[in-house]
């Protein structure tokens, strides 16, 4: 029988790339990781994702899949143990709705905060805090969005970690903290404590340095 060949093209600091690592590790899938230099993309990456030329790209037995949420669904449907999405169609719809919300609303808002100043930045912070309150409404009293264990939405919500690192790099702490968003803050601690998840977070110091270089100079 042919060996299953799984490759992941990604970058160490990209949240969407790290999502795929979490999904593969939760399923116990062996994979080869290829670190890309986005200023000098490899011919392999361009070959496997000619349309968007972006990471992450998953290659499974020679066939490539791009777009992190699409890849996550593919992983869940291909390796059926330890499901990432819930079984119930309505709950699946909720997980997909909120994952979309994170990618289409939360991430652009987070990107705006790190480059904004003064009044404009304050407006963006108010906006993103409201978004996080909305997410708390979905979490309610659960341990994770996925229930007792990590699921699709927990993995998609990893971008919240990027916001926390960015706020620290900018010398701020008023965007996400225990006082302002206790429910989400609690979830975040449990996420960072999770055995699988914590292996897939960028090394803190290196990450902070990267953000200080990228965003610190605009302050």
């Amino acid at each position, binding site marked *: 029988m042919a060996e299953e060949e799984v490759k992941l093209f990604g970058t160490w600091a990209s949240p969407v790339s790290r999502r795929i690592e979490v999904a593969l590790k939760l399923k116990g899938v062996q994979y080869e990781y290829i670190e890309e230099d986005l200023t000098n993309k490899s011919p392999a990456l361009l070959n496997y994702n000619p349309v968007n030329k972006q990471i992450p790209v998953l290659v499974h037995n020679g066939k490539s*899949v791009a777009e992190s949420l699409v890849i996550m669904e593919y992983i869940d449907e291909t390796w059926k143990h330890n499901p990432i999405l819930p079984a119930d169609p309505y*709950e699946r719809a909720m997980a997909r709705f909120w994952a979309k919300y994170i990618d289409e609303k939360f991430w652009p808002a987070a990107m705006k905060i790190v480059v904004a100043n003064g009044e404009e930045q304050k407006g963006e912070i108010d906006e993103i805090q409201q978004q996080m309150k909305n997410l708390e409404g979905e979490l309610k009293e659960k341990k994770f969005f996925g229930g007792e264990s990590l699921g699709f939405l927990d993995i998609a919500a990893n971008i919240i970690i990027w916001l926390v690192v960015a706020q620290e790099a900018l010398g701020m702490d008023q965007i996400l903290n225990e006082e302002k968003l206790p429910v989400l803050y609690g979830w975040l601690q449990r996420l960072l404590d999770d055995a699988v998840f914590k292996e897939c977070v960028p090394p803190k110091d290196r990450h902070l340095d990267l953000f200080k270089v990228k965003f610190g100079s605009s302050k």
Partner: protein
Amino acid sequence: MASGSVADQEGQVMLLGFWFSAFVKRVEWALKLKGIEYDYVEEDLTNKSTLLLTSNPIHKKVPVLIHNGNPIAESLVIIEYIDETWKQNPILPQDPYERAMARFWANFIEEKVTEPTGEALVSQGEQQEKKVKELKEAMEVVEGEAKAKLNKKTLFFGGGNGVGYVDIVLGWTCNWMESIEEVGGFKVLDPESQPQFHKWMANVREVPFIKTTLEPKEKLVEFFRMVRQDRLGLVANK
């Protein structure tokens, strides 16, 4: 209320929509493809119902599907829900890799065709030119896919003679695009450089359950003209 289970699939289905919305029509096509009975509620854009505001408090937009009292928003999320709840006439393919390809193209269409079209409708000058350029590039990719996937035997991206997920997601172009082009004063559709795409659009228009839902051009033009004037008026007054 307990969330919907397979046993509840025969329960009440309600769709909140606007007549002019391509996103709403997509959901209707998915429901009709499966032969699902549903109650349609026409919302008033200037006076959204309490039901809409409580069913979709986050975005306050249509479409919203309400099944057994459980609301779902976002057209692509709704379509996947429909496909997973009612198993007849599948919309997405069965194979995980084929499903991934269908989802990838749906994402591409939303980001590179649907969104920029909406933005081109309500912008002008340099901003609009930028969007139109993006659109033209995206349409080259779409034509490339159409050339690769479609032929005399395979009329639709869903394979064979039946529409599938990608057809439903891209289908709005067969009617809305022309009206938006006219109102926005730009041209993206080009039969000469997009022959396969135009064949596909013609085939989509003829699908019986799609044909009956297509709004007349004049009606759409009148509506989108109002939207454009409204939005540009707001920008000018800033």
